[in-house]
């Protein structure tokens, strides 16, 4: 059972899309996230750093061929916070529907 909890850290649009993308995946590479979210390298790095600092995201640098690739994944705390945030959003929408309906 997910407890609804609005998360101010996740809610900004770019960060929410980033976390939602990671929530649908086991992991995603930096280039994939940058391309899908339409962010610059620096903007994505900043968002990932913020989420990593909060313990929501873990990153790992992997050597593939001669290139280092960065992989990001949602931590258990990040997944829980995301699910709680989505539940909170659903409650807000449902409550608004009741109020107007």
């Amino acid at each position, binding site marked *: 059972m997910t407890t609804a909890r609005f998360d101010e850290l996740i809610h900004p649009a770019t960060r*929410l899309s980033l976390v*939602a993308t990671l929530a*649908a*995946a*086991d992991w*995603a590479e930096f280039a994939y996230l940058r391309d899908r979210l339409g962010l610059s390298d620096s903007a994505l790095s900043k968002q990932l750093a913020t989420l990593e600092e909060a313990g929501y995201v873990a990153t790992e640098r992997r050597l593939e061929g001669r290139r280092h690739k960065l992989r990001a994944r949602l931590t258990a705390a990040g997944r829980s916070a995301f699910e709680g945030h989505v539940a909170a*959003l*659903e409650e807000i929408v449902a409550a608004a529907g009741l109020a107007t309906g």
Partner: protein
Amino acid sequence: MDPVASQDAGEALAAVAHARRQVAEEIGLPRGYWWAMAAGWVVLGVIGEFGPSWLVIVATVLFGAGHAALASRLLDGRRGSDGVRVSAAVAGHRTPYVVVGMLVLLVALTVAAALLIDADGAGHAALWAAVVVAAVVGFGGPEILRTLRRWVRA
């Protein structure tokens, strides 16, 4: 409830659904799988056309065994892209059935094409049918799988 807040929440939920759909678009099998399948199809066609019947049986069993070994790792559809590993929850559990169904259809298509080519009087009907279907698998495998998944809502 502040109406702006509820509208904002609705838009946020739409963004979450969009992100999930984008990741789900990556469900599939690696390109290499389809080309290996196409190569196997041609090899089986060549053996079927020119080889003795015992070799056809051995090759078919080896092809099946090789596919089964790959299948356990790949058929869940979560390794379609190098850039992301789709979560099991998003990938669902129907993709392997869709892939196997697609392979059965392709076998039927190969047999039908061979019968048509043979009826037309052309030589090496089994080989030509295998080459045609191999081209379909190699060039169009990912797209066919994507379409079939959409049809069966997998």
